[in-house]
């Protein structure tokens, strides 16, 4: 057995009340191998007490100093006891008496009170999102930025800081994420499973996760990275971090990367990194060459040896498009709108849009121009000062009525996105407008049976209002194109 060890020190600039010090003495004294402890202000009385314990300080003590005197069985027990005193003195005391609830104004102040892993969900106006997101990163926590209108330089700075801190920034403008089964923002109720999604596209991720669910395949996580992540400016910062996180996640066996058309240099960099991971990564990045998210899901199912089901659909009213009919795609989901344009353009030629495939196809402020048009009502420019069209259908309903009033022959192609955060009964909101139009209506209904709105309930209601309903946006688009073909 080792010889007894002793520690006696006087510390200046530390003050604690006597009751607190008695608690510290008692707690440290209860440690194994500790035989005597006195942690007290060095008043003459306490110094005398220490002397009686054989632990007198060598230098003269003053009552403003803190006396720490410990005897233990051996050096290890002594070092542990000294460390325990230091920790106890440094420990932050939580409020025990708080008269009224003081509002907590910042993410940082909230995270102060949380000890374990947390995720910040930021949906404040875009110009202010950076401060709340930076709070989370500074606290060593990941953050999902739902806000749109976040300047790209804020996005880059946040994502760099997050990478350095070993946390993830999802977004900005990230509408959809599922983390360990927790649906954040606009997400669907899908079964847990082996597929991890990295999504630079919210509605794209919803489409893919819902189709997987309908095929009986679940997801581990859906990590949204924001629509700009794969742009030249952001360079895939969050995509690369999200891929690494999923690669390290034992629940994730396969990764599907979902995005709008990425910047070529960034796509190459991401492909290079993805190729080096131990988890197989399949890309569902939309492009003229791969215009179809449903096909990407089917390819993944094939890789996994899972049968591709018949994707659910409902027949609608047998309306015929008038002669010379055009495609009118009124979307709430940007990626679904892109997919529709990519599939329609080879058949119809140019499609104009507020989020066009090529800049020269851009619509001006008037969205009701004649011809083939696809409008993304979820685009930032149309959501300034109003809720997303998945929540607030007003602008889209106005567009449907304006089209009916114009008399332009058309096939109307819509998406309806179900899940958390979305309109609790979108079919009920759309039905009156659909009943007023004489155009054929095709709806891509993105959701699952387990969603709060229920896929079949909504599908039946939309079909009853005259719409042809498809679980797959690609199938819905092709059906609309067929109707237009019949009209020509």
């Amino acid at each position, binding site marked *: 057995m080792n010889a007894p060890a002793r520690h006696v020190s006087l510390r200046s*600039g530390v003050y604690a009340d006597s009751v*607190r010090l008695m608690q510290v003495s008692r707690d440290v004294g209860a440690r194994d191998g500790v035989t005597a402890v006195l942690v007290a202000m060095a008043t003459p009385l306490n110094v005398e007490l220490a002397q009686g314990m054989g632990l007198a300080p060598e230098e003269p003590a003053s009552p403003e100093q803190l006396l720490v005197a410990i005897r233990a069985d051996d050096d290890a027990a002594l070092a542990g006891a000294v460390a325990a005193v230091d920790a106890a003195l440094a420990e*932050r*005391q*939580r409020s025990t008496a708080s008269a009224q609830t003081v*509002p907590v104004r910042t993410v940082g*102040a909230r995270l102060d009170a949380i000890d*374990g892993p947390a995720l910040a969900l930021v949906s404040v106006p875009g110009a202010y999102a950076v401060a709340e997101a930076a709070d989370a990163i500074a606290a060593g926590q990941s953050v999902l930025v739902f806000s749109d209108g976040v300047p790209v330089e*804020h996005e880059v700075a946040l994502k760099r800081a997050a990478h350095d801190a070993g946390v993830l920034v999802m977004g900005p403008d990230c509408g959809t994420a599922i983390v360990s089964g927790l649906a954040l923002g606009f997400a669907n109720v899908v079964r847990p499973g082996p597929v991890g999604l990295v999504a630079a596209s919210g509605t794209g991720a919803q489409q893919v996760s819902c189709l997987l669910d309908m095929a009986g395949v679940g997801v581990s996580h859906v990590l949204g990275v924001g629509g700009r992540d794969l742009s030249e400016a952001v360079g895939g910062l969050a995509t690369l*971090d999200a891929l690494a996180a999923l690669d390290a996640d034992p629940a994730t066996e396969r990764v599907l990367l979902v995005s709008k058309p990425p910047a070529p240099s960034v796509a190459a960099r991401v492909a290079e990194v993805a190729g080096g991971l131990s988890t197989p990564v399949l890309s569902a990045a939309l492009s003229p060459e791969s215009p179809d998210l449903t096909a990407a899901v089917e390819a993944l199912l094939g890789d996994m040896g899972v049968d591709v089901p018949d994707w659910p659909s409902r027949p609608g009213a047998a309306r015929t498009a008038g002669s010379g009919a055009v495609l009118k795609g009124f979307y709430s989901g940007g990626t679904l709108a892109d997919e529709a344009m990519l599939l329609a353009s080879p058949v119809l030629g140019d499609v104009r849009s507020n989020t066009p495939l090529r800049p020269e196809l851009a619509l001006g402020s008037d969205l009701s121009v004649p011809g083939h048009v696809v409008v993304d009502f979820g685009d930032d420019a149309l959501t300034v000062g109003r809720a997303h069209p998945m929540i607030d259908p007003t602008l889209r309903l106005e567009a449907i009525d304006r089209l009916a009033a114009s008399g332009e022959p058309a096939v109307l192609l819509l998406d309806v996105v179900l899940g958390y955060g979305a309109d609790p009964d979108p079919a009920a909101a759309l039905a009156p407008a659909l009943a007023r139009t004489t155009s054929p209506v095709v709806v891509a209904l993105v959701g699952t049976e387990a969603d709060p709105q229920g896929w079949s309930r909504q599908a039946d209601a939309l079909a009853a209002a005259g719409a042809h309903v498809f679980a797959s946006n690609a199938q819905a688009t092709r059906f609309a194109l067929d109707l237009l073909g019949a009209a020509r």
Partner: protein
Amino acid sequence: MNQLLAGPPAVVAAGVDVFSDALRAQGAEVSDVDWRPPGFGDPADLAALVLDPRRAAANRTAVERVLAAGSVLTDVRPAREVLGLADRTILHAGPPITWADASGPLRGGLIGCCLFEGWASSVEEAERILAAGEITLEPCHHHSAVGPMAGVTSPSMWMWCLEDPVQGGKAYCNLNEGLGKVLRMGAFNEEVLTRLAWMRDVLGPVLAAAVRSMSDPLDVKAVLAQMLQMGDEGHNRNRAGSLMALRELSPAIVAVDAPSSDIAAVLRFIGGNEHFFLNLGMPTAKLAMDAARDVPGSTMVTVMARNGTEFGIQTAGTGDRWFTGPAQTPVGLFLGDYGPDDANPDIGDSAIMETYGVGGFSMAAAPAIVRFVGGTVPDALATTERMYQLTLAENPAMAIPILGFRGSPTGIDVVSVARTGWLPQINTGMAGRVAGTGQVGAGLVQPPRECFEQALAALAAATR
């Protein structure tokens, strides 16, 4: 990051309620932030500061210096000697000001100084030489000094001399005159001048001899820490601190070679002045805040001070530049027949206490005075809770008993002031608006928003 994917995380949500509700419906643990748009500031400026890579480390450096600072009483000396204060120079509270812009109590204090120093033989003459610019006016803060209320300090006044044994700083403050008709509140009648003369001729020399004779200098920071355990907040209530200072100084005072009648008068004077300790607490806070000066990138406030006309602040990241706005009039309770119309706008360097995290910031420690400044005990607790959201650290040396001995909220962050929209809470005395009146009450006051707006813009400009 793997931590994020290890299991459902707790969620902190700022913004749209609908998402929190959906998360709760899934059984998630959700804490909402009661987010509001910032109270002021260009969003681009706020973003520049939030994203400034220097800021976190700079603020940590600044506040760690504040927390590390100690304060011991080393000497008592006339301002002429220790500050090198030239003849016909008067120090005052707050940011720089001229006679023309000075409010009643500051004018009263300046007049009193001229009479006390013999630079004028009448009030009219004092006003004339002050108006003619024959007297140099400089802020106490430009001389490592602080002064309560008008803060007027002239060469013949004795100064407490304090040192930070950790970081080596020095700070100074004149001796507290007591309550009522006093120079710092703008009074300058015969009673005031007689007392000032006695302080110069008796109190100062006795205290100087006593302090110099002490083998262990008084640890003023330790007294401040203990006061908070005894119902003082160190700004508007200094009762326990003053008694402790008296206890610590008495053995040395009675041993001074002076007539016993003088010793008795000194002890009676100190014992009868509940704010005697304020002039020791203020330079203690000043030592700590000066230790944090000149940290590029830091958005921490180092000075809050008022001259009765303007409120001024300085920050660690912007050196000795003042950011000023119009001083507000405190709200609170009044002595005798005085009312709100009698109160002068906010005045004094004593807001250095709040800058340091005590005073109004530690209101929860002093339930005994909340009614005096016109509040309730729950208000006091809520005030301190709010101030935690403005500050960078909790000072473990300044523990607040009723909050479970949580450290006082310390180190005001200009960015947090903007983001919360909450201004710092200051406890203060109120001087009469008319020169010569003296104290009329005590209450609560906040800085004008402009100070923080300007500081935010300047700090943001420094990041570019």
